[in-house]
C-alpha cells in the first residue's frame, strides 16, 4: 500500500473529557484508501520535548467529506500541543501505515473490545464491518461515566455495551467482567481488541476459551513508522517483528507469551 506525506488542516478540535479530544482533519488532496487498524505518524511542531512523530490510529475516515478523525489521549507535551490546535492549523502526517484488521464475511458477528483510548480504531473498524454485512457489538471499558466517549457514534452501526470501574454506567468492573463473555451470551465469530496490554491479553485468552479468532492492535513506542529503525519491535514466535509494518494488528497466537 502506497504511503504518503501530506499536510492536513484542522476542521474541528473537540474535547470529549479532560483526558481526550477528537481532531477532524482534511488534506489538500483526495484521501488514499485507508483501512481500519492503520495509523498515521503525526508531526508535532514547536515543541522541544517532542522530537519524533506520534503514531495515532485512524478513528474514522469519511471519504464523502474527505476528512479523517483522530481520537487522542493527552499523555505528554506532544499530545497536549495537539490538544490546543485550532481549526485552520496545519499538521503533517505520514500515512496510511501498518497492516489492518481482517474483515470477515457477511452474516458474521463481531465483538469489538476497547479500553480507554484503545477504542480509537474500533469506530472505523465497526463502521466498515457493518458496511460488509457483519453484525457489530462494541464493548467499551471506561474509567467512569465521564470517560465513555462518543457512544452515539458506535450505536450508529451496532450494539454498544459498557463497563465502568465504579459501575455508574454499564457493568461494574473491566471489559472482561461483562456478562457478554458468559457461555450462554457469547455468540460471536470473531473478537477484535485494542487497549492496554493486560486488557488485550485477558480479552485474547477469553477469545481462545470461546474458540474464536482474535486480533489485537498494539501500541509500542515508535520512531520511523515505516520499518526502518526497528525500535517498535514485539517478540513473536518467529522472532522480533516491527509493530509499524508487521502490525499494529496481530494474532495473539503469534505473540510470544501472550496467551499464557
Amino acid at each position, binding site marked *: 500500500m502506497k504511503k504518503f506525506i501530506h499536510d492536513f488542516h484542522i476542521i474541528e478540535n473537540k474535547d470529549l473529557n479532560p483526558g481526550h479530544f477528537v481532531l477532524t482533519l482534511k488534506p489538500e488532496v483526495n484521501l488514499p484508501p485507508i483501512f481500519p487498524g492503520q495509523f498515521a505518524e503525526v508531526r508535532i511542531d514547536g515543541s522541544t*520535548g517532542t522530537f*519524533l512523530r506520534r503514531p495515532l490510529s485512524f478513528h474514522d475516515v469519511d471519504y464523502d467529506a474527505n476528512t479523517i478523525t483522530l481520537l487522542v489521549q493527552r499523555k505528554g507535551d506532544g499530545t497536549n500541543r495537539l490538544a490546543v490546535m485550532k481549526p485552520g492549523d496545519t499538521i503533517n502526517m505520514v500515512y496510511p501505515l501498518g497492516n489492518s484488521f481482517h474483515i470477515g464475511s457477511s452474516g458474521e458477528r463481531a465483538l469489538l473490545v476497547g479500553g480507554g483510548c484503545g477504542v480509537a480504531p474500533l469506530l472505523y473498524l465497526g463502521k466498515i464491518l457493518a458496511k460488509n454485512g457483519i453484525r457489530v457489538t462494541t464493548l467499551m471499558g471506561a474509567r467512569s461515566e465521564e470517560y465513555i466517549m462518543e457512544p452515539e457514534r458506535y450505536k450508529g452501526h451496532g450494539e454498544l455495551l459498557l463497563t465502568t470501574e465504579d459501575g455508574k454506567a454499564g457493568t461494574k468492573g473491566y471489559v472482561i467482567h461483562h456478562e457478554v463473555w458468559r457461555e450462554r451470551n457469547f455468540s460471536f465469530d470473531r473478537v477484535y481488541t485494542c487497549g492496554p496490554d493486560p486488557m488485550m491479553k485477558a480479552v485474547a485468552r477469553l477469545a481462545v476459551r470461546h474458540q474464536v479468532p482474535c486480533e489485537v492492535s498494539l501500541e509500542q*513506542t515508535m*520512531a*520511523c513508522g*515505516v520499518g526502518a529503525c*526497528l525500535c*517498535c519491535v514485539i517478540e513473536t514466535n518467529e522472532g*522480533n517483528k516491527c509493530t509499524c509494518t508487521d502490525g499494529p494488528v496481530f494474532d495473539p497466537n503469534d505473540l510470544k507469551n501472550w496467551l499464557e
Partner: protein
Amino acid sequence: MKPSLEVNIHNLVLKNPVMTASGTFGYGPEFEDFFDPSVLGGIFVKGTTGKLRQGNPYPRMAETPMGMLNAVGLQNKGVDGFISDIYPKIKHYGTHLIVNVSGSTVEEYIEVAEKINALEHIPAIELNISCPNVKEGGMAFGTSCPSAAAVTRAVREVYHKTMIVKLSPNVTNIAEIAQVVEGAGADAVSVVNTLLGMAINAETRRPVLSTVTGGLSGPAIKPVALRMVWQTAKAVKIPVIGLGGIMTATDAIEFLLAGATAVQVGTANFIDPTVCPKIIAGIESYMIRHETEDIKSLINGLITV
C-alpha cells in the same frame, strides 16, 4: 550555471554528498513511496552481521530533547539473509550501496566482508567498530587504537573495494583513532556513530531502555559531531564522511565546511521521510546563492581568521 555537487570518496564518485546513515533508512525500499532512492549520493544499509541477530529486547528507544536514544542491537538477517533476500531487490538502484559490516569478533567482520566483497553492486563497506549496543565487539573495537587497527587491518586483507571505517565518538581523542585506522588501510572514515547515553523514568525509577544505556542521535549531538569531524579532518588525509544530527541543508554544509567530503543523514529520516531530497535541493540553492560552482570548494572551507 548548475552547480556541481559531485564528490569523491576514495574511488567512489558520488553524484551529491548526501547519503543515508546505516540503521535509519532500512535498505531503501522502505522509503520508495516517498522518493526514488537513486537521487541519493549513497545508501548505507543496515548493520550486517555473520548470523541473524534478533537485537535487544523492547524497549529499545527513548525520545530525548532534540534527539533519541536507541538500543536496537544490530537486529538483522545476517549476511546470508542480506544476500539472498535483500540484495536482489536493491542492486538496481542508481546509487552507491554501502553495507555496514558489524561483528562480535574479528573473524565475524572478516566473514561478512569477504561475502560482501563478492557482490558486484556493492562498491564499498562501512566497518562498524562503533556500535554501542552490543555486549561483545562493536564499540569495544573502536575505542582503543590497537583494536581499531587490528580489525581494520584484518578486514583490509580480505576486502578489496572501498573500505570506510565508522568511528565512535565515545573516545578521548578521535583524531588518534582516525590516524590509526588510516594507517591500517581505511579509505575513508565516517564520523560519528551515536553517543553513549541513558534515559531514566523518574516515576518508575527505572531505566527507559531494556539495556539501560543506548546510542544518542539527532540534533542534540550535532555540535559534538561537528567538532569531531573538524578534528578528524585535520588529522588524516583520507576523506571524512560527517554525520550526527543533520536535519537540514545548512547542517550538511556546516559539516562540509568543518572538513567532511560527504555527509550521512540519519535520525532525520524518521521525522521526515522526504528530508534527503530536500537537503540535496537545499545544498544546491545555497551554492547558487553563494555563487559556488563546485561543492568541493566548500569542503574544509571554514574561515577561522
